[in-house]
């Protein structure tokens, strides 16, 4: 069973792989960080993130849409829920 910190770190790795220039900003990313407003993710990058989450954590997110995740917290909660 993954811990919240492990999921957060995995998520940061995904965000860096999507845009390596963001690496220096990852220290500031917390659970309250908003994906669109704070990280500047657009529809395609949200899709990229969701696909990468399934690949990286080897999970099925079910019938979610790319707009179902607003904050990092939402994303971690969902990953932990489906990894149970």
């Amino acid at each position, binding site marked *: 069973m993954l811990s919240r910190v492990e999921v957060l770190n995995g998520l940061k790795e995904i965000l860096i*792989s*999507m*845009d*390596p*220039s*963001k690496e220096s900003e990852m220290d500031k990313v917390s659970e309250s960080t908003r994906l669109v407003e704070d990280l*500047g993710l*657009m*529809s*395609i*990058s949200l*899709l*990229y993130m*969701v*696909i*990468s989450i*399934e*690949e990286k954590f080897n999970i099925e*997110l079910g*019938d*979610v*849409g*790319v707009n179902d995740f607003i904050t990092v917290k939402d994303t971690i909660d969902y990953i932990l829920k489906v990894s149970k």
Partner: protein
Amino acid sequence: MKFENSRQFFAKYCDPKEFKRIIEKDTVVQMWESCRREFKDLPAIIDNGVTHTYSELDEDISYYRSIYKNAGLVKGARVGVFARNSYDLIKAYLAGVTYGLCVAILPAHLDEKTLFGVSKMFNLRGICYSNEFEEKVAFSKKANPTLKFFKIEDKGTSKVEMATDLTKNDSCVIMFTGGTTGRSKGALLSNGAIMQGTVNGCYGCYNIFNQRYLLILPLSHVFGLVRNLMTALYTGSTLYICRNNKDMFKDIAIFKPTILVLVPAVAEMALNLSRQFNRNMLGEDLKYVICGAAKVAPYLISEYKKLGINLLAGYGLTESANLVSGNPESLKKPDSVGYPYPNQEFQIVDNELWIKGANMMDGYVGLPEENEIAYEDGWFKTGDLVRFDEDGFLYITGRCKEIIVLSSGENVSPAEVEVFFNALPYVQDSQLFEDVDDNGQHFLALEVVPRMSELSKVEAKDKKAFLMEELNKVNESLPPFEKASRIVIRETDFERTPAMKIKRYQKC
């Protein structure tokens, strides 16, 4: 100008036996007559784990026609289809157009009020909708009691034959578009236009019959409807419907498509994911990616070629039943959107492309003032600035309304300048625009989104400084009036339209 030898031009890229089978048709009824006769037991659509053969699809649409007949709808009546991509959507659409109706495929994201507004603007007689949109249609049901409603999941009561008296001039579909002026409207496309677009989609691939396609684009987009669905059916191919875009690579792994129809942003995402997870996310059988609806970077063409996949860029509009030109020489001429497809005439007026042709729409529905702007002497004014090279290949150099007129009187086409910056492998996208400083002085500014996958490979310690140096070198090579006075490397992507085109700044 006319391109008399257009069909012959494309012949050399196609298997000669298959090329003989690419025959122009006047109506969807004519096409479907051939499909159901020639492809009977072949799989047509795979959706939700169920495979439907051409015969089964034919039976289902003949039953569904009874729903339209029982509702008293006659040839030429307009109905909307409001659903996400599914077998049932395709069934309701094909039943409608083969019954002689004009079908408006409505985007699934419409809210209830917009749906009602659209039903009035398009003068719809009925709406076919999916169960999940019951709440969204409730307002229209109440507000417009004369509108008839049908469930796309219904079967129908008995078989009804296809219309026998359709011609190429009869209306076939209404497609949503932002058009050349940015206001949402419906482009009315005849049977002849849809069939020309469908046949045009057959040109450029060596083997085009009996292929495997994945449907990712919405069918409410002309690229999805014409190139992805109609050309697939015309060629006896199989279409696998991807129900959720996040599952597209799982669907690819299962279905192993041979042709994908993608917008460039998704094509690039597929490449990056393949690198990130160190495996081919595109499936081992993929031969062609048909890429359009936004600008295709030459970088993508060469990267796909390294994987043995031909990425073919093209140019089209909703108003032209999608396809105007396609580029089977994308490696030799990566900046071109290709060679014009048959049965079109072109005129270039002040660098703007004007078109007449069998694939062109019959106008915007219910908007005479928009048609007034869109046409001149029967020519459709695309709003795109273009040039043809000596071999007849087309290049998009900008959009009319994007032209920046400098105080010196010189005109700058941003797209024409951006192409030099975009040629750097470290640049994913760029935007040249006019800005104004605190003293009211107008100047040209450039913003760039870096392609981090390439930039991270360079040895320089300060990668941003390296990129800025490269951008400055390009800037220095430009004529003085096209040089940017300020260059910014962005941290995030540009704001984009639903078709993934950059939303252009309007600062001045």
